[in-house]
């Protein structure tokens, strides 16, 4: 086993062992790994199975159910555009279109250069500031197609400089 793989397993084990709450389950462990790595490698499924005494199948069943889990590494910039009814009324489709054009994607997914991951969100909880989008953990409200485009392009430029 390569040291890279050993290192990955180490990080996964640390994430599983470091959960602050008393109740540790398959789901809580998967969420902890997703938080630590940003995605669930196959090794995570195995480690969670070992730690919780479940089968790979049991763990896979849970991982495949919740739509926030990723199965390949995300780009450095994850953009989530809300398509909930409030945002929809206030122009979410135009925001989505602007973001898609800015990153060069036809819909949800990862850009070929691996810089952006784009996802739709059912409601970011910021309906009072709709339309909303999230960049990483940060939510931005009162978006226009123009501010959304600048925001999304800006993170990449900020990182490159």
């Amino acid at each position, binding site marked *: 086993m390569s040291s890279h793989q050993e290192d990955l397993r180490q990080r996964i084990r640390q994430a599983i062992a470091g959960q602050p709450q008393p109740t540790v389950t398959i*789901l809580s462990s998967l969420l902890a790994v997703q938080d630590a790595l940003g995605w669930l490698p196959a090794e995570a499924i195995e480690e969670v199975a070992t730690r919780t005494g479940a089968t790979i199948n049991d763990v896979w069943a849970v991982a495949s159910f919740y739509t926030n889990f990723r199965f390949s590494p995300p780009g450095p910039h994850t953009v989530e555009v809300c398509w909930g009814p409030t945002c929809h*009324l206030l122009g979410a489709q135009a925001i989505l279109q602007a973001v898609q054009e800015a990153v060069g994607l036809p819909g949800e997914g990862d850009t070929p250069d691996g810089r952006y991951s784009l996802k739709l969100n059912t409601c970011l909880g910021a309906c009072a500031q709709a339309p909303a989008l999230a960049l990483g953990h940060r939510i931005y409200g009162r978006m226009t197609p123009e501010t959304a485009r600048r925001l999304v392009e800006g993170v990449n430029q900020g990182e490159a400089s």
Partner: protein
Amino acid sequence: MSTYATLEQEARSQWEALQGRPWLRVGMAICGRSAGAQEVLDALRRALERHGLPATLTPVGCLGLCFAEPLVDIQKPGRPRIFYQRVTPQSAEALVEDYLLRDNPRPDLALGTLGGQVAGIPPLEEHPAWKPQVRIATRNCGTVEPANLWHYIANGGYRGLAKVLAEMKPAQVIEEVSKSGLRGRGGAAFPTGTKWNFLARAPGPTKYILVNCEEGDPGAFNDKGILESDPFTLIEGCTIAGYATGASKGYVFIRHGHEGPITLTRKAIAEAYKAGLLGQNILGSGFSFDMEVVLTGESYVSGEETALMEAIEGKRAMPRSRPPFPAQVGLWGKPSNINNVKTLSYVPEIVAKGGAWFAGIGTERSKGTAIVCLSGHITRPGWYEVPFGLTLRQVVEGIGGGTSTGRPIKLLQTGGPLGGVLGAERLDIALDFDGMAQAGAIFGSGGVIVADDTTCAVDMVRNLVAFCQFESCGKCFPCRLGFTHMLEVLERIATGQGRPADLEAMRTIGQAMSLGSLCGHGQLGFNPVQSALRFCADDFRIHIEEGRCPTGACRPVLSLPRRTRPQPVGGWYARHAYAHH
């Protein structure tokens, strides 16, 4: 061991110490942050430092006046609180220099005052968005530092629990809650006292109170709002519920990713343990109760009460069959009671002031207050706690200020995606669980999305059904296939390909779903379509007969996630992800 009296004394002295110098509070809940409150907080901190001003700067939760965010509240010693609206980093600096240094309260930047008069600034108590409010569950929101136990106690917190532990038997607590008429605020409006009785009668010693903060309804943000603004009111309410029902532990169930509510609730729980308000032998009463935050992944159905238990157990959030009911066989096979955040957040005040007091607010069968989340084409989006019985018009036009576009209201979408739509002609019905259900929509969790006359009902309903289709857990086929089929029909209608038989087709599908689905998701899923057909039949008719959208809102190609999970998209959602291994 702490007693309530010693805690109260400590709290009072801490609260008084705050009054000795200028106190600046910045609304830092989700809506504040998404409007730029972090930059405002940073600007205030820099300005205070630059001028070497002694002042207290505190991030607080949400006052509910989201339209005014970023909102800054400045209170000088002996003066009223002044609320400044739509603050920017520049105006934040101006406030420090003008009001703190030069004593010019800048009426031009202010929204209103609370607790006294300042020349040139209207009192918030008279503001149309504040005046009709009766703030019970939200009484501390935006006023206290969210996970600060001393702030909570100084404002009357834990009075209720202290009274319950010192003077009341569990059965008396349930009686008081029954007398209050409190009904569940999570959707089904079930009487809370009755529900607690089911759990009280179930055998112990291990029983659970499960607090539902999944809040997946788009357009509803009051549960997260309470936890981000005043988590202790929920914690105290949950502890009282535990005492009343003989439960041993409470779980607060929050969706992963909502860092504000998660972090603050965890912090508040830790503070409560430290002060002896959770854990063994609470306040020396012999009563012990534990609490913990558990997270769910993204899944709307995990808010359904039996799916919620599956998710806490770490499995797929797929509903269980009933019976057995949760009060008999619940989480990990133990008797359990599920309540919404808002429901339990009323409890401390109900026991402190008495059930009769609460029952004196509201209508005959909907007691107390409604916490309404207004969003959409509305001048003043936000969340407002108002007595039941106000008309929808008073809420939408009075509090919300009417449409933001100046156009007429066409419809209200209420109660989340499983709720329904109400036509503008029903604006004069009262805010009331039963009245709204009769009119064809439900109050549900309190979301009210306002849509003006540029909205097409077909487009709106298509969005709601796409949500339901995406979120179906897939366990039973009437729901899983029904939503998929219904969405296909709606897309056909929306794009001008509708057929005359389509309306009947949707009714047939809807009926099969409501009869054959295992949980409320499928059972109620036809509500939005049915109510839209009732109030906006013309939109559907024009689409089908004339092949056009009456308002132009329906787009031919619409990006909505469409799948019956699991189906891959990019790196998300399950797939044969590890084929290369």
